[in-house]
């Protein structure tokens, strides 16, 4: 582009090449037929693959340092990941915590969450917990105590436990899989639910499968080790 010799004095000599306005416009060019979908994947016009969202449980082993939860939750919100719940708790190793996150995302979205989390410095290991993982959550339910016997019966039906009983309200504790808890809450609704506190699910992989990739759970006090 340089190298044109513009003489000093007045406007320079006209460029012999076509000016922008003289160049072929968008409609005068050929354009390819192909397309990509919103995830940047080339679309096969015959078999158009669309990713559907699914529910995934992601477990991360993190260093228990100040701000680690803020780093993870900030990442989730600023990248608009669709998250259902997030729980944090200690592990067998002092200084390490486990974050369990339930997300509703497409496969590329889940992959992106894992990769972005892996970049956070305090995150030691992160991955999706295999589909047959043991998941459980806890709910505290405060219902009206007008019919204590009926409340007690429903509580027993759902393997719950009464943790507080007063003259006006009864508080029960239930644990289990999300769907079981949803059903239980439905059953308690007829008593009149006063308040609910629900933790969201936490999860462990079954058998010898590590919960976070590469994790080799140790006994308390011994460092957890990892394969890379």
């Amino acid at each position: 582009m340089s190298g044109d010799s513009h003489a000093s004095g007045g406007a320079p000599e006209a460029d012999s090449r076509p000016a922008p306005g003289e160049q072929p416009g968008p409609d005068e060019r050929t354009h390819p037929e192909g397309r990509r979908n919103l995830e940047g994947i080339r679309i096969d016009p015959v078999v158009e693959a669309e990713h559907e969202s699914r529910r995934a449980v992601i477990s991360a082993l993190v260093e228990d340092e100040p701000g680690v939860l803020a780093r993870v939750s900030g990442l989730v919100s600023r990248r608009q990941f669709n998250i259902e719940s997030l729980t944090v708790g200690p592990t067998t190793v002092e200084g390490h915590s486990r974050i369990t996150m339930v997300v509703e995302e497409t496969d590329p979205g889940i992959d992106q969450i894992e990769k972005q989390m892996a970049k956070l410095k305090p995150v030691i290991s992160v991955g999706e917990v295999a589909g047959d993982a043991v998941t459980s959550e806890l709910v505290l339910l405060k219902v009206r105590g007008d019919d204590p016997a009926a409340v007690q019966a429903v509580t027993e039906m759902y393997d719950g436990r009464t943790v507080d009983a007063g003259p006006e309200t009864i508080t029960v504790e239930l644990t289990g899989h999300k769907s079981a808890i949803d059903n239980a809450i439905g059953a308690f609704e007829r008593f009149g639910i006063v308040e609910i506190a629900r933790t969201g699910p936490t999860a462990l992989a079954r058998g010898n499968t590590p919960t976070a990739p590469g994790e080799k759970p140790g006994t308390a006090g011994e460092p957890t080790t990892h394969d890379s």
Partner: protein
Amino acid sequence: MSDTAAHTREDDPEGSEEPPEGVDDAAHATEADETPAAGPVSTGAESVVAALEAAGAETAFGVQGGAIMPVYDALYSSSIDHVTMAHEQGAAHAADAYGVVSGEPGLCLATSGPGATNLVTGIADADMDSDAMLALTGQVPTEFVGNDAFQETDTIGVTRPITKHNYFASGADTVGDTVGEAFELSRAGRPGPTLVDLPKDVTQDETDRTPGPASPPAGTDPDPNADADAVEAAARTIEAAERPLCLFGGGVIKAEASDAARTFARTYGIPVTTTMPGIGSFPEDDDLSLSWAGMHGTGYANMAITHTDCLIAVGTRFDDRLTGGIDTFAPEAEVVHVDIDPAEISKNVYADHALIGDAGRVLDQLTAAVREAPDAESWRERCAEWKETYPLTYSTPEDEPLKPQFVVEAFDEATDDDTIVTTGVGQHQMWASQFWTYTEPRTWVSSHGLGTMGYGVPAAVGARVAANNMGEPDRDVVCFDGDGSFLMTMQELSVAVREDLDITIAVLNNEYIGMVRQWQDAFYEGRHMASDYTWMPEFDKLAEAFGALGLRVDDYDEVAPAVEEALDYDGPAVIDFHVDPEENVLPMVPSGGANGKFATAEDQL
């Protein structure tokens, strides 16, 4: 996806300093061998400075203030030079540009509260462009944190989303190690800014603990080599391609991979386009070069990227200003994506071949793995035809004012290839990238991802200091700025005068926020809301008031003499070029549009 989801970090309970296998020949490891042990210290602040000296930091850019005073006091007797900037934003941009030019992390300092928040724009800018930089901020004493003390801001909270990682220093004994780690982390793997917040008690407290050898945290310095099988598969795709195209991004420059990139493209005769941050990775005067692609990229680059069947993308994150609408981006290309950050793979554009590793290493791997050049003669001819059909040109009618593109070309002609160009953001930035022929890496210094107006002048300060430190005081530093951008940070001119920095600032003055005016004309029926300056200072006189050389140019015949005078002037010079206020940046791909449908005239938008 779960089967490939093993994103693990090697746990390192022993705190071993050994880098992961295969990384020990990285540039900074070599330097670590040469790094003298940090000297004896007596306070946390001295430990901070000792860690910086041991890391090889030569220059810091900053602004003094209450909570950072202990660190400044320790700098008093340090080998590290300090450039006092007019505003902390300038310090961050100067440090960022220093890093871009020198290849070493830039260093900036600010006090707590407003000092730290003023850094924020510059840190965010470095984050978006993956520039290695360390910011040190003062903080109120630990016991006051959380009490809304004087000049207290939650700097860690504010900068968390715009840093690679940030640290709250917890004690005088460890603060030096923390600073050393933060410095190394900023350049490990994919570079980015890091920050250490320094409560005043931590820097004031006594310690005799000398910082140990610094290394990035475990798991943050990845394997530079890509998986060998993936490289082989990619090589077969490249060999079979009929319309192969290289897309070199900023990662090529950061990885010092420009030579490897040139070797690869030339060995196999593959045309090259770059991203804007990738400008300089491949010489734009090479026959294979198609210059840069994207919203205001060349028509021929955008035609090539639209029609390629094999896109070899290296060190790019497929930003929306590059891709336009994803649905029409390189829609027929198998994508070979080389990147050091696994999270960039298939983030925006699906990678058919993911090569995770250092740009230079992987390009060498590819050069070795490809057995024969793709049969691309007719493709190269097509690219050449596009260059003929869609040249970057502009008209210079007698009855219209001076064209800004002419000014850029005049500077390019008057300077050597190693000249460093910095810019603000807007129309002038696009002309500076379009009408200057870049041939070398680390000569184009601009704000890409964040698009920070005002980047140009402080960046010129940082670039000048870097070139001087590198023993290249004769290299020219030219800042192209817009009138709007210049007004945002021109106070840093006082620094350039005080420090006697030889820089030339070319203000392409159209008395508009020009890019906004152009969009208003194209998309808002010409309603010039808040883009039209009804009054502008006389920048030549303003420059003189600062103590710089100030010139004003209105006509074509004044351009060359003014450029020569400013470049010859030993110190900062400002030329106020009054250019055609109605000139538009073309070609242009409208936001979200198809690259191949770039407009060559405003009425096509």
